[in-house]
């Protein structure tokens, strides 16, 4: 156990004590103040690693977890995991601070909220710092589960439950696919460690499982990162409290898919399949997200689609950057490596500006009671600070200077332009599409940013449509977005500091050729002359402004596309169908008739025992152990058969009961013949009591009616019972004919010396297996208690009248 392990476990440990803290201090002190310490401490701790990691070093610490399967809890810190770790804890701390003001300490069940939040934080940290794929998978699913819990936090609302279930279905589906991919990977490389897999990339590429494993892994990544068409869960996840939307569904959890793709790039990257899948999924998502965001009227839904779109942007950058691995090193390689750098850069930028935008939307929701764009407007004068924050975040997202979004957007354009010139992976013919899609998506991104800012803050103030009178938020709620917004600006002016210490080590983790500092020179600068990228940005601004101003004229085209063709509709229909099918299927065999269940049980018995004897050659007949049948036994057997058949065919209950009694006495006689005096005695006593009991109840139970049932019913019974009888007979014969082991009874022959008993059976019962017998007495006691209560119990009159109703 190192400090690093402890740091990852701290959120889990703290989650355990949160309910106690809540009980002691609520509602005097907001629980969030205690929780705030967790991400802050971890953040500061992780900051200490920056100097080490920026020199190109990595740290690997392993603790055995399930050593017999080679599963170790290995933490691994390199640039990539450090970036994620810092984002998780940094944004986490701000979100917790924000939530202290957002979540009322009087009304909300805060202990649940913070337990889920800490659970998520720990899972996410474990995910990014884990080197073992199975451990990674466990944490991956934990994030899905905690996300489910957080979306359903207001579980009284139907939309929350729906959104939670949807996100769970989709992300867990992806997670399972990813697990299959992981298992294939470990089959190919015979290791669970990502480090060791990267060393074996050549042999993986040759393997026939290469493509299936890659597709399954990408399914996991795409579902988690809400890539098209799995993006449908993210807008519904917006039912979660806004701090959660800001944290999980824009800054961290949805980036787990990005993390996975980045992590796996050294293994799969440099191949055309990887390049095309990742890039095209990213680009389609980018375009789809930005197009759909424009028509949203709910501010959070708008942000959700914009998150989808931005995730697509990062994804496509990673896809294009993977081409660098094809070249290895050299000019072209470093050209594409810049795309990876841009991806990580944009990932950080997105976390800052989107986090702050979500918080602003949360403030608007909190202070006005609505997030509907049609009801908002004119908040500029009432909420000046929020307005400023929205402008910073929104302009950054739109890609305008002087905000960090401008830098990464420019790098994105550079990357797409480079990619369109690419001469590998059959890019000659298709390459030209990429910049076109990128540019179009950027135009729509610009439009929805403008909608977000100007529709809410300018125009006419409509107090009648709001639930509360709008006013500026409390200071505590403004501090986190202010910090994030200042980061947005600071990063714009000093991008190369960030690049030096954080981005380049992270890029080195994705592209191992550049893992040592100084091997690549990428300068991020705001001004690089009148080049194509700048003209593209100018074009975006021009076209975007034009389309925004005439939004009303063309917004109608969105309604052309019918709802029935959307993936959302497919999902809902599919889910309903599956539920109906499973209900019908279950009802078809769970009839509620006890006899049917007996039929299943007995049929299964026949199939399992009969089948196993048939296929495993279990049936063995050996006459050698058979004992000769004497005249007494012959008579006994015949009378027993007669008695048993009498029970079967008797029409009077008295006859049946007497026949069963007779059967019992005959069995005890049998025991005498077979040298078992104790059994015979016991059987005699028990049989007497049982018969007496039967006769007692006989007085109360009705006459056995001749059962008026169909022939089919009887035939089923007959076939099944004959089958059971035959199987058991074969079993008995085989057991008799097979002697695998020596009898162990001679262990008990010294019973006289050990237990002072001459009767071995008795010695076994009361001495050697004394505890068994004690428990047996226990069972008897329980049964007698049951009998006693059932006889004595008087059902009250109310119960009876209810039943007769």
């Amino acid at each position, binding site marked *: 156990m190192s400090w690093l392990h402890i740091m990852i476990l701290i959120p889990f440990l703290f989650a355990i004590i949160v309910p106690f803290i809540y009980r002691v201090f609520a509602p005097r002190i907001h629980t969030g103040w205690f929780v705030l310490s967790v991400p802050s401490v971890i953040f500061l701790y992780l900051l200490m690693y920056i100097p080490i990691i920026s020199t190109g070093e990595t740290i690997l610490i392993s603790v055995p977890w399930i050593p017999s399967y080679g599963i170790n809890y290995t933490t691994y810190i390199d640039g990539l995991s450090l970036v994620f770790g810092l984002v998780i804890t940094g944004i986490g701390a701000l979100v917790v601070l924000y939530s202290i003001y957002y979540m009322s300490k009087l009304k909300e069940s805060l202990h649940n909220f913070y337990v889920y939040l800490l659970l998520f934080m720990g899972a996410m940290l474990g995910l990014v710092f884990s080197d073992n794929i199975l451990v990674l998978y466990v944490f991956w699913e934990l994030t899905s589960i905690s996300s489910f819990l957080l979306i359903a936090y207001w579980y009284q609302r139907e939309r929350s439950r729906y959104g939670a279930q949807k996100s769970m279905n989709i992300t867990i589906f992806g997670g399972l696919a990813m697990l299959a991919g992981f298992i294939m990977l470990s089959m190919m490389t015979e290791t669970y460690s990502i480090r060791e897999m990267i060393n074996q990339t050549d042999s993986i590429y040759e393997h026939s499982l290469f493509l299936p494993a890659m597709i399954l892994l990408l399914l996991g990544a795409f579902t988690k990162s809400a890539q098209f068409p799995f993006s449908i869960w993210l807008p519904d996840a917006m039912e979660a409290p806004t701090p959660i939307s800001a944290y999980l569904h824009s800054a961290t959890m949805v980036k787990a898919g990005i993390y996975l793709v980045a992590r796996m790039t050294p293994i799969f990257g440099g191949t055309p399949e990887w390049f095309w899948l990742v890039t095209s999924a990213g680009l389609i998502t980018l375009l789809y997200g930005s197009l759909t965001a424009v028509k949203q009227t709910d501010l959070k839904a708008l942000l959700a689609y914009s998150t989808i779109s931005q995730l697509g942007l990062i994804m496509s950058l990673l896809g294009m950057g993977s081409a660098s691995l094809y070249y290895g090193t050299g000019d072209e390689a470093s050209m594409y490596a810049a795309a990876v750098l841009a991806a990580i850069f944009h990932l950080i930028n997105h976390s800052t500006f989107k986090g702050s935008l979500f918080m602003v939307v949360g403030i608007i929701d909190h202070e006005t009671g609505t997030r509907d764009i049609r009801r908002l407007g004119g908040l500029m004068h009432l909420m000046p600070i929020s307005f400023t924050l929205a402008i910073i975040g929104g302009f950054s997202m739109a890609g305008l200077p002087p905000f960090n979004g401008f830098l990464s957007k420019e790098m994105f354009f550079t990357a797409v332009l480079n990619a369109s010139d690419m001469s590998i992976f059959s890019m000659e013919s298709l390459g030209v599409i990429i910049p076109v899609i990128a540019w179009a998506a950027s135009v729509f991104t610009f439009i929805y940013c403008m909608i977000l800012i100007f529709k809410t803050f300018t125009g006419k103030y409509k107090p009648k449509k709001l639930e509360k009178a709008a006013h500026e938020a409390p200071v505590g709620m403004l501090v986190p977005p202010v910090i994030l917004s200042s980061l947005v600006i600071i990063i714009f002016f000093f991008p190369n500091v960030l690049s030096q210490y954080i981005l380049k080590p992270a890029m080195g983790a994705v592209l191992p050729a550049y893992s040592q500092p100084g091997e690549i020179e990428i300068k991020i600068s705001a001004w690089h002359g009148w080049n194509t990228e700048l003209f593209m940005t100018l074009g975006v601004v021009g076209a975007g402004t034009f389309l925004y101003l005439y939004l009303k004229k063309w917004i109608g085209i969105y309604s052309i596309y019918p709802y029935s063709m959307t993936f959302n509709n497919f999902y809902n229909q599919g889910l309903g169908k599956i539920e109906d099918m499973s209900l019908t299927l279950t009802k078809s065999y769970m009839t509620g008739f006890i006899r049917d269940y007996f039929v299943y049980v007995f049929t299964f018995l026949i199939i399992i025992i009969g089948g196993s004897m048939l296929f495993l050659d279990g049936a063995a007949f050996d006459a050698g152990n058979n004992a000769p049948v004497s005249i007494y036994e012959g008579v006994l057997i015949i009378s027993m058969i007669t008695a048993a058949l009498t029970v079967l065919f008797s029409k009077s209950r008295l006859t049946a009961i007497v026949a069963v009694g007779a059967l019992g006495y005959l*069995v005890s006689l049998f025991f005498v013949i077979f040298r078992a005096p*104790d059994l015979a005695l016991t059987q005699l006593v028990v049989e007497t009591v049982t018969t007496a009991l039967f006769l007692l109840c006989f007085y109360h139970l009705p006459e056995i009616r001749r059962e008026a049932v169909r022939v089919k019913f009887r035939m089923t019974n007959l076939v*099944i019972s004959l089958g*059971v009888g035959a199987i058991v007979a074969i079993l008995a014969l085989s057991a008799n004919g097979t002697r695998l082991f020596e009898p162990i009874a001679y262990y008990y022959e010294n019973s006289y010396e050990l237990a002072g008993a001459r009767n*071995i059976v008795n010695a076994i019962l009361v001495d050697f297996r004394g505890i068994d017998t004690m428990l047996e007495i226990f069972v008897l006691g329980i049964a007698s208690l049951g009998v006693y209560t059932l006889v004595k*119990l008087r059902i009250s009159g109310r119960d009876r009248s209810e039943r007769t109703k």
Partner: protein
Amino acid sequence: MSLLVGLFFAIGTYLILTKSLLRIILGTSIISHGVHLLILTMGGLKTGGPPLLGLQDLPFTDALPQALILTAIVINFATTALFLVLSYRAYKVLGTDDTDQMRGNHDE
């Protein structure tokens, strides 16, 4: 012997599959006899004297199955008694001994 066990099981199963409660109980009773005999058969039949150390005719039969059966007999007695009283109670309360009619609501 084994055939006898098989017959017991067949009859017992048939009885259990019918609808009358009393028959079901009788069926379980018969099956349990079958089980006892099955265990006894597995131990090997008539291979020696009774497992009493004082007697002369060594070797004895296997004492272990006997001990098991003894336990089984007692437990069987307990369950039969419980079954009986339960069915008595069910008949008193529900007014039927037909398992089909005992079925609960259709809309569970």
